[in-house]
């Protein structure tokens, strides 16, 4: 099956969140967990925010993924707390990269995974339209989401092909890595992109009319909970920034 970022089929089971709520969550988590804004004041809120992707995955019935995520996160978090102060030198560096990077990147990665697999392109566009985002931003953005898996897939295939020809790090022709891998990847992607663009135009993307949408989006009770959580986080960050 093809990997897809923004899925084309609507999610069937579980709680529906508004696409705007999901975007807000991505923003909050990327600022406070991934970007580490707020410094030490966010020390306790950060793990709480990191629990949100877990709850979201549960809410759409992906218990297995949720369990995997929570185990990985807990291991890294504990490793960071206990191991880091007692290790030095190279082992310290290794633990730091593994645990530190995972702790920061995993929540953001999982929430992004959750959002892009449960939101359809139509829902995304509908949400953006309600926020009055200009189509000059939303169309390229939805192309980015639609097209990124394709490019990665092409890159992986070309990687395999070049490995077979011995063009890899430490191989005989390692100086040709760049040219032999980047160029076919770009050429392939551009060709696929042209086809994608033709397909989208056939379906009326370039038409000078306002596009309509049949997606029903709106805020419900689950959205309100997320909004309160995000509000508390921002308020706490502002409050602690001023109290210092």
């Amino acid at each position, binding site marked *: 099956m093809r990997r897809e970022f923004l899925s084309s089929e609507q999610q069937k089971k579980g709680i529906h969140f508004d696409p705007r709520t999901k975007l807000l969550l991505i923003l909050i988590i990327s600022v406070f967990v991934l970007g580490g804004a707020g410094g030490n004041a966010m020390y306790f809120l950060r793990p709480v925010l990191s629990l949100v992707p877990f709850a979201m995955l549960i809410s759409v019935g992906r218990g297995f993924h949720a369990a995997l995520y929570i185990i990985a996160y807990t291991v890294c978090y504990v490793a960071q707390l206990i191991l880091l102060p007692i290790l*030095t030198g190279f082992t310290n560096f290794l633990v730091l990269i593994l645990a530190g990077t995972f702790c920061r990147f995993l929540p953001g990665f999982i929430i992004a995974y959750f959002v892009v697999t449960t939101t359809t392109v139509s829902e995304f566009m509908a949400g953006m339209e309600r926020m009055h985002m200009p189509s000059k931003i939303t169309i390229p953005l939805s192309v980015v989401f639609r*097209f990124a898996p394709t490019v990665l897939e092409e890159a992986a295939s070309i990687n395999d092909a070049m490995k077979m020809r011995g063009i890899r790090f430490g191989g005989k022709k390692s100086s040709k890595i760049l040219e032999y891998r980047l160029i076919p990847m770009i050429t392939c992607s551009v060709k696929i992109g042209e086809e994608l663009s033709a397909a989208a135009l056939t379906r009326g993307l370039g038409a000078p009319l306002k596009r309509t949408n049949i997606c029903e989006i709106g805020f419900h009770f689950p959205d309100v909970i997320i909004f309160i959580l995000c509000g508390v986080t921002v308020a706490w960050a502002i409050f602690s920034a001023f109290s210092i």
Partner: protein
Amino acid sequence: MAKDVTQKVSNHIGGKDLITVGIYTVIYIVIIGIFGALSFIPIFIPLTAVFCPLIGGIPFMLYVTKAKKFGMTTIMGTLIGVLMFVMGMGYWVAITGLVFGLIADLVLKSGKYQSAKRTILACGFFSMWEFGNLMPFFVGREAYLAQLQEGYGAEYVSTVSSYMPMWILPILLIATFIFGLLGGLIGKAICKKHFKRAGIA
């Protein structure tokens, strides 16, 4: 019908152009990401100002053969900035993405989207968005280092700050521009050698 065709060539950004922007943004970010991923190793942090513009020149020079309308490069810069911001590079990159995208766009426009020299110059300016990724090291340095220390430990931070002293700021800013120009030259050569032959430039 003939009127429609002439309108398409006009300065209005249509659906096809927006899709083009999206496609090249993905290609650009994937290529940058290959080198950007190395930057958790301290020595590669200042070196991103060298490698990313050099490599980024290739997709950019191909992109400008398609982007002949004012605004497209600005949108691309903004999108790259916003996506980098969401990927956790700090908010500065969203600003530099917009600003240097706009400057590159103006340079391209001044050459009427034809001049080869202006395209390379635009590539140099466009590459300076990369500087936004490094901005947290200089603006609000203390807070950023403290926050790094919390996540990565004191040893890592002392290594990183020794590679990224304050005086390196103008050097990095100029480096992104110079290597952006070089990247533009490389990109131009590769366009000629490969993409023209493949019929996509």
